[in-house]
């Protein structure tokens, strides 16, 4: 069987297409690369959707934490603290239990007990909290002069936020936010590792890497393959975010552009 056949059989295995049974003997390197790559689809799915949805919520949370209203500020601060203060591993575990009991009460929540929806919700809340903290920090360091200038031009409320505060906040937060994105993608590997079950052997990259390590009893091939995929993914993320960073900073003179330093992210 050539490698092309393997790709046809297993390329979309993680989504449930192609060969039903996973390879069980005579494992080839090609099979490992293809299946683990197929699992990467899930990592990308989780990471991308959580990142996009989390971005919107993070902005809201950051505004909330900076709000004058003490109730809103407290709620936002607690949300951030709970999700940043506890390991994602344990969050997954609890979320799964919570969704199960919700499901027993209201059938509507059934969908949340499967990984594709439930884990996505957890990752979404998690990244919202982390990015919220990053954005909050950036919001605090928006130069006072810019806000005053906006006032002077008669910008108010929404317009001021949309045109002045928000873009500056993003620009300041971007390097740290890039790191958060990288970490979020790494965190997606935990989905099938704690709590959420894998259905019909449709799992993420780590699930398949684990499968092969388990079947071949040799961890030295599948895990480095997995690592290779993630390094590629990380490079793509850095590239994409770098492009956006250029755009965010395009109005600044060359030497003042905030460099894409890979500074330590605000923790996961």
């Amino acid at each position, binding site marked *: 069987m050539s490698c092309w056949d393997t790709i046809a059989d297993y390329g979309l295995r993680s989504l449930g297409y192609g060969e039903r049974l996973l390879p069980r003997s005579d494992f080839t390197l090609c099979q490992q690369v293809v299946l683990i790559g197929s699992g990467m689809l899930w990592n990308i799915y989780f990471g991308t959707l959580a990142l996009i949805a989390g971005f919107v919520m993070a902005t809201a949370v950051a505004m909330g934490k900076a709000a004058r209203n003490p109730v809103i500020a407290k709620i936002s601060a607690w949300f951030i*603290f*709970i999700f*940043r*203060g*506890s*390991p*994602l*591993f*344990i969050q997954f*575990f*609890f979320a799964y*239990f919570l969704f199960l009991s919700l499901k027993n009460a209201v059938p509507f929540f059934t969908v949340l007990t499967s990984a594709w929806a439930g884990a996505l919700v957890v990752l979404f809340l998690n990244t919202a909290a982390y990015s919220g903290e990053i954005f909050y920090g950036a919001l605090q360091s928006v130069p006072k002069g810019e806000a005053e200038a906006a006032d002077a031009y008669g910008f108010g409320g929404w317009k001021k936020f949309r045109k002045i505060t928000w873009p500056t906040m993003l620009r300041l937060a971007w390097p740290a936010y890039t790191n958060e994105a*990288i970490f979020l993608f*790494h*965190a997606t*590997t*935990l989905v099938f*590792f704690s709590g959420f079950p894998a259905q019909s052997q449709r799992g993420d990259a*780590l699930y398949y*890497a*684990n499968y092969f*390590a388990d079947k071949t*009893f*040799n*961890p*030295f091939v599948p*895990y*480095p393959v*997995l*690592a290779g995929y*993630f*390094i590629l993914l*990380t*490079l793509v993320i850095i590239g994409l975010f770098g492009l956006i960073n250029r755009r965010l900073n395009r109005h600044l003179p060359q030497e003042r552009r905030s460099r894409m*330093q*890979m*500074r*330590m*992210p*605000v*923790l*996961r």
Partner: protein
Amino acid sequence: MACYLSTPKHMAFYWSFGTVLVLLAITAPLALVFGFGGATAARAQLAPVRWFGKAYIAVVRGVPDIAFFLFFVIALDQGFEYLRHQVFCPDWDQPIRQGNDFLVCPAAKLPLSTSPQVWHEIYGFFLAVLTFAIVFGAFAANVLFGAMRAVPQPQLETAAAYGMTPRQTFWRILVPQMWVYALPGLGNLWMVLIKATPLLFLLGVEDIVYWARELGGTKTARFTDYPHGDWRMWYFGALLLFYLAFTKLSEMVFDRVMLRLTRGQATLAGEAQRKAAA
């Protein structure tokens, strides 16, 4: 209830909190050393050293830590035993890899198969510490690399103008000044490290997650004096509180340290302190 909570098994659970704290206490400085080495290498003059440092930082940071933990311990273990094998048994004539088996001479085994279990546990712990340190060393290297670049260039130029050698400049000017810039990043790293500890059980260390799962699982009356249903919820709840409290505590300590470090510094925060006092 009191009896239940004080079974030897629960005692092991309580001890494992200590294990985690000890791990953190050892890993943090070690990771810092690795980080320092990595950062220094990444800005070395010699190209191969520089590449090595940069590759270390990029590769380790690009890979999810969990993937590392899953195979790194066995790799390290075999690496050590291979080295010892070369040292202790130069005239060993059998191949080390026989099929799937990894065979070194008995004298090279780590720890020796004759040594008591406690040494095996210590060795396993040591491997876990090393793995954590290598992974987090890469992140620390990244932070320190950034911090070294953040030290104002004129400082270094002045040092050179005073006739200091590059080595002297590095140790006397650059290193003492970089910490202020590195501290926020290192603080974050510490928080990440705390939250990576639940993965310890992957490394074969019987940590809090291991015991929480073991104790919380359903117990039928045949195998224990204290049968109960699925109590993992409560045990994991306890872990959650532990982590939240620990994070809060760390945050408070870091805030204090930062307050001290910024005192008298010519930064915005230092300026704010000065104004508040006046």
